[in-house]
């Protein structure tokens, strides 16, 4: 796109180099509309129960997560220029993100988040092993 119109006097050459990244307004609008559509789709899951019955719940969750990830990457790659910028930025950011996701998922798993059956014993520790074999 046309980033190169009038830039700082002494640094024309630099600006050219630096700003070969970034999309055009048109591109951004396109991305935006995609995002709008995806969001609409996301919001629609709210009524899937009515439309497709209770059974659609897991699919809805799956769709939601997928759409979330797509939206995330669309914004990050286009609006935040990661697509065009030096890879180092991408690496730093996604490294942080991956650490965050990994660490917190592990912590939640360790807290039995997925198997919590909702009793007064929070995140029920795994049931005691059956009193079987003698220990020694």
């Amino acid at each position, binding site marked *: 796109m046309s980033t190169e119109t009038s830039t700082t006097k002494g640094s024309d050459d630099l600006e050219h180099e630096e700003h070969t990244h*970034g*999309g055009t307004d048109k591109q951004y609008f396109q991305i935006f509309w995609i995002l709008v559509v995806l969001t609409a789709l996301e919001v629609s899951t709210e009524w899937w129960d009515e439309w497709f019955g209770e059974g659609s719940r897991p699919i809805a969750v799956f769709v939601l997560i997928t759409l979330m990830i797509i939206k995330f990457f669309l914004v990050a790659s286009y609006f935040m220029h990661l697509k065009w910028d030096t890879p180092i930025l991408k690496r730093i950011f996604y490294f942080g993100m991956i650490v965050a996701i990994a660490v*917190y998922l592990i912590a939640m798993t360790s807290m039995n988040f997925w198997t919590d059956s909702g009793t007064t014993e929070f995140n029920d520790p795994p049931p005691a092993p059956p009193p079987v074999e003698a220990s020694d």
Partner: protein
Amino acid sequence: MGDLMYEEVEDLEFPDDIHVTSTGISNEKLGMWVYLASDCLLFGGMISTYLIYKNRPAQIEGLEGGDIIPSQFFDIPFTSMTSFILLMSSLTMVLSVNAIMRGDMVRMRLWLVATTVLGSMFLAGQAYEFTIFYFDDGLGFTTNVATSAFYALTGLHGVHVLIGVIMLLTMVGISYRRKMHAEAVEVVGLYWHFVDIVWVVIFTVVYLIP
């Protein structure tokens, strides 16, 4: 991250002295990205807290504080609107960046103001949502862990948006006062988009997946 660096070594060789920074990226931009990466862990922590607590009061009998949880009261159409507004503000933000890259200060300022307005609308929406929760639905901050976690998470995000709005306004102010470097707008933009994608996650994980 370091072994990523290993491969990086080659690209980081100084081609010539034109690049003043070793990576070719300005300090500000790099710093902002490093900060954003760090913020991932901040929001990650808050989101996990919410996830762990969201259904507890309703699921577990005998807890003090009652069994109402925020997700019973979500108004999805309304929140969809505010989410949409925030998404739109991301668009105006990039348009603003493009404008200043073209040297078009008028448009830049226009889009910046638009972003500010949209961001403020989002905040207003959130404030409205909070008042409904609080006064009509009886969800206090201290009602139970689910409500506390909800307010803490969305509140933290709201504070980020607020800071973003202040930064945008500052940019507008400064643009009247002295010459601006296009990258300054871009860096603020990064922050703004980040706040937006965090909301993308929150909106999905908190609002849409009950």
